[in-house]
């Protein structure tokens, strides 16, 4: 890197790397330069002319957003001439702006309002009629109001450059210019809402939030998206216990400002009319509402009775509840019920990967690594559909660092737009694709391999052996489905493994049943399902089994249940979850649903009812987390990082995991951008989006939208 240069900004001497943009240098020293079109990380537009500054020796004002700093530069950012220029730019842009701030969604957090407060004229001199174009709805979730648009082109860039969807373009010219869906009158896009989020004004609005609230009326709660395993931080705007909006404008968290359609809109399942709000007990063959105390007594009584009689109990945990809850649940199963028959729906072979990597450190990638690795290989996953944040990180890495992306997939994937090399394979033949890339991969300085459930069992070991044979540092991400799928494994929701991947047998624990074994056991006495739906595609062989269900909705399993407890969603509780990269993040309660309780509390109340509360310990998130940190290997993570909303990566177990992972148990449900298991079914927003789109990359060759 070149030597840093010295320059002065408003009389203050600063050093900065040669070539860094003046606007960034100024901002890094706390001198704000207003900007509408400049947006860090995207191509330069230099369209709004708000960032004009004085640079000594230049005949006219220069745009700080395009000006690289150089040695000896003398810059002034707040002179009368500069203020006057900004005032006049604002005067120009306001001529055709409707100034409907009192009803505009953006009012209160609008960059145009802010700039006008700071630099604008107090009075308008524009006497003429304003240009007006009607507002239009581009998709079930995206609306565009051209009158409010200040044509900063941020939306076009975030969609094209950022996401790779290239769904937005510019049409017409002069004052009639406007943003349009590319080649169509509506959007067939990812519906991610990034364009809405990045819009400095209220020109783009979302169906779910528009005209719902003013920003200052809401509580803004930073938590984690409940949908996929990528674990995006989302800031929920909540008013009166209702979630009105999801975004991450403060760019905190591992995902920066990224959210996909599910993180942005699919919180509406939370207020679905079909949420369970009261416990139910089966009587006379029908589920009927019951009081909490009756239902708890009923379920606890049955558990106690079956345990004492030595009957078979199967427990199914969830990939959507917190680590604390899953930990508490497996503890209940193992210590109170004395069974190892505890399982969850497995979606990736993390176990074999951890075993194959035993003894290594730094071989598991973080979300940040996806953005910094020099080369990334994607095997058998359509990331844009299934792991949007992973796809985003990889693409941004390519955009910012020219990293090389390799893909081995069955069909077209969005990574094709920028991939360095790609291989198409029949499903199941992914490993053959590896060899064709060997030479190129071996020439890379380092590699990050992302693989889905196409690689499981022995194939995982082959993959690691392949990685080793390249002779370069290799890191891995084993993709799993839902928000806490990784955490469920870490918490030992498997009959063969205790929390932290300790082998159950070695700890003297009896054998337990997997989910298929539970379903097949003719003598199963109790099936207890927490936030899962094992009967969705399978029936219980044991017809007389007593079924206890904790869930948000009346799932197939709940329909078969004898007792149903209404649970709180992830947005209604506190705790931690572990994402696909093994990063632990904190969830915070944002909303609440009358009648529902957090699963931790339900389990705790059952323990109390059974009189085993002292064994289980208090069902308080913090207490359980403290125990979990102490006892689960790898979870001794930095508490301040997690409590302040950061992500702390857990450590791999460090020892071999000598169990045979059964590939048949591992199956991704293959959610797309518009599905999310049970929760997705109850999200009106997701259902309103047409099936199939979000696959722009398959339909046309999208040309790079470049303008710089």
């Amino acid at each position, binding site marked *: 890197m070149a030597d840093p240069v010295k320059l002065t900004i408003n009389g203050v001497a600063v050093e900065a790397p040669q070539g860094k943009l003046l606007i960034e240098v100024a901002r890094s020293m706390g001198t704000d330069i207003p900007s509408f079109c400049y947006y860090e990380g995207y191509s330069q537009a230099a*369209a709004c002319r708000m960032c004009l500054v004085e640079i000594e020796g230049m005949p006219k004002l220069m745009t700080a957003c395009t000006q690289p700093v150089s040695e000896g530069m003398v810059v002034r950012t707040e002179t009368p001439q500069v203020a006057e220029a900004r005032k006049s730019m604002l005067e*120009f842009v306001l001529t055709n702006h409707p100034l409907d701030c009192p009803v505009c969604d953006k009012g209160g957090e609008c960059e145009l309002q802010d700039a006008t407060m700071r630099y604008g004229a107090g009075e308008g001199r524009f006497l003429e009629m304003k240009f007006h174009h009607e507002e239009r709805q581009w998709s079930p979730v995206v609306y565009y109001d051209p009158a409010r648009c200040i044509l900063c082109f941020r939306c076009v860039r975030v969609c094209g450059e950022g996401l790779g969807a290239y769904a937005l373009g510019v049409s017409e*010219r002069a004052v009639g210019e406007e943003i349009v869906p590319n080649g169509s009158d509506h959007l067939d896009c990812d519906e991610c809402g990034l364009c809405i989020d990045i819009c400095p004004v209220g020109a783009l609005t979302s169906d779910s939030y528009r005209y719902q609230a003013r920003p200052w009326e809401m509580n803004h709660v930073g938590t984690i998206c409940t949908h996929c395993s990528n674990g995006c931080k989302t800031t929920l705007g909540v008013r009166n216990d209702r979630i009105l909006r999801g975004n991450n404008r403060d760019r905190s968290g591992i995902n920066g400002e990224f959210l996909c359609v599910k993180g942005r809109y699919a919180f509406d399942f939370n207020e679905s009319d079909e949420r369970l709000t009261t416990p139910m007990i089966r009587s006379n063959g029908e589920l009927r509402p019951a009081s909490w105390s009756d239902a708890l007594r009923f379920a606890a009584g049955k558990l106690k009775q079956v345990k004492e009689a030595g009957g078979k109990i199967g427990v199914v945990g969830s990939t959507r509840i917190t680590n604390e809850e899953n930990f508490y649940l497996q503890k209940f199963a193992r210590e109170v019920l004395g069974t190892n028959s505890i399982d969850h729906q497995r979606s990736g072979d993390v176990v074999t990967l951890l075993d194959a990597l035993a003894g290594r450190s730094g071989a598991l990638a973080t979300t940040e690594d996806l953005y910094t690795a020099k080369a990334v290989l994607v095997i058998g996953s359509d990331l844009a559909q299934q792991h949007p944040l992973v796809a985003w990180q990889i693409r941004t890495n390519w955009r910012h660092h020219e990293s090389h992306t390799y893909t081995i997939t069955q069909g077209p994937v969005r990574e094709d737009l920028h991939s360095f090399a790609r291989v198409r394979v029949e499903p199941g033949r992914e490993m053959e694709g590896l060899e064709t890339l060997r030479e190129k991969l071996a020439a890379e300085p380092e590699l990050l391999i992302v693989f889905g459930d196409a690689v499981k069992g022995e194939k995982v070991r082959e993959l690691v052996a392949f990685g080793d044979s390249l002779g370069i540092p290799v890191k891995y991400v084993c993709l799993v489905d839902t928000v806490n799928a990784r955490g469920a494994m870490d918490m030992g929701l498997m009959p063969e493994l205790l929390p932290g991947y300790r082998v159950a047998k070695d700890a003297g624990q009896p054998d337990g049943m997997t989910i298929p074994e539970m379903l097949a056991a003719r003598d199963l006495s109790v099936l207890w399902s927490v936030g899962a739906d094992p009967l969705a595609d399978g029936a219980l062989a044991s017809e007389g089994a007593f079924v206890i269900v904790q869930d948000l909705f009346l799932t197939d399993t709940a329909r078969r249940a004898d007792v149903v407890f209404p649970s709180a969603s992830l947005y209604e509780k506190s705790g931690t979850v572990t994402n696909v990269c093994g990063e632990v993040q904190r969830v915070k309660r944002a909303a609440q649903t009358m009648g529902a309780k957090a699963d931790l509390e339900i389990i705790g109340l059952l323990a109390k009812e059974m009189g085993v509360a002292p064994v289980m310990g208090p069902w308080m998130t913090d207490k359980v987390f403290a125990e979990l940190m102490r006892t689960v290997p790898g979870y001794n993570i930095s508490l301040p990082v997690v409590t302040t909303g950061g992500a702390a990566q857990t450590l791999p177990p460090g020892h071999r995991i000598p169990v045979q992972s059964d590939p048949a148990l591992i199956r991704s449900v293959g959610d797309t951008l518009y599905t999310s298991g049970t929760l997705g079914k109850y999200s009106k927003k997701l259902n309103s989006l047409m099936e199939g789109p979000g696959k722009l990359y398959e339909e046309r060759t999208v040309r790079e939208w470049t303008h*710089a």
Partner: protein
Amino acid sequence: MLYNEPSPLETKVLTRLFGVPNSTSVETYVAHEGFVAFRKAVTMTPEAIIDEVKKSNLRGRGGAGFPTGMKWSFVPRNSPKPKYIVVNADESEPGTCKDRLLIEHDPMQLIEGMMIAGLVVGAKRGYIYLRGEYRYLIDILDKAIAEARAAGWLGENIQGTGFDFDCYTHSGAGAYECGEESALLESLEGKRGVPRIRPPFPAVAGLYRCPTVLNNVETYCSVPSILRMGGEAWANLGTPRNGGTRLFCLSGHINKPGVYELPMGFNLLRMIEEVGGGVRGGRKLKAVIPGGSSCPVLTAAECDLPMDFDSLKNAKSMLGSGGVVVMDETTDMVKVALRIMKFYQHESCGWCIPCREGTAWLKKILTRVYDGMGQNEDPALVHELATNMLGRTFCPLGDAAAMPTISIVEKFRDEFEAYVRRSPMANLADIDKRIPVRA
């Protein structure tokens, strides 16, 4: 067909084939020293050719007057990327109509100029970007290119010299802004015609981000004669620092409108009187737009000056594209300002705030004033808004809209005030500023 009678005062260098029968054919061209310059160039080093062009004091004919030899020397000839030759034939500046004649009468001269530029930078491919309305020129050019190819003047190993070069035409879609070099390149690449951030300049990162020579039609057409005559002799046709001849497009209130090739530095008044046959109907001269509508207007009193880049700069105007628009004493300067602003408002590409919004606002104010609904503040407001645009827009189109406006308000303020005085709205601001008036 000639559109106007040539003037005896002309120096026919670039236009020497105008009026010669079958002037567009290879045979006619070759019979009139065609490709002699190319033959000569093949024997020269690129440096020597650039030197000759530098000596000729040829300055870009597209408007800005940038020294062509210097521009060519900026091209990184040893870059591993392909190099391109691009001809700006977008000719859309109001008052300008010379490039079309150069193409219509002598397309081979343009092709030869491109070939020589190709030799200099090592380009094998040239593109001629024509304004959309010049549909008929595409046929002429395509025919000429095909003929030149058939005769071995384009294609591989041209005339056994080992030099490969070919060229292609490409039509714009009717945007003035696509004459701006970087917007032209975007458009040529098939994208929306909006300008690029510069630097890098086209010489370094032009078409497909490769080194590119981009010049006006007339600039390329000047090159063959420069090599034939020698740079110095060519320079001596004009004035110091402003070499050669230039095609001036005389239009407006003048007796003999037309395109005339005159030496650089030709006196403007003499041009109007002697070449153009004087102001129409013997009326008095009021004002002149000296180089296309983007240039500040000159009052009659300012017109006694040599037409070269430097003299016009001294007069706080520009030589621009050579479009000389003559206006007599009956001209309504408010209407002129409005007409010019209408053009720029319509042509603003919409990329940047000051130009997109400023031209629209100015058009509205000028329309209102012209419609007799002006207010006392309007002349000052027009001046201020145009000044606020000046130097702050993304590309020079904003300046091109602001400069003539500022000059007209400054030089003919009385006309604006007369309009406003007659307006029933004149003092409205004192009553209530905020009554909307009309679209």
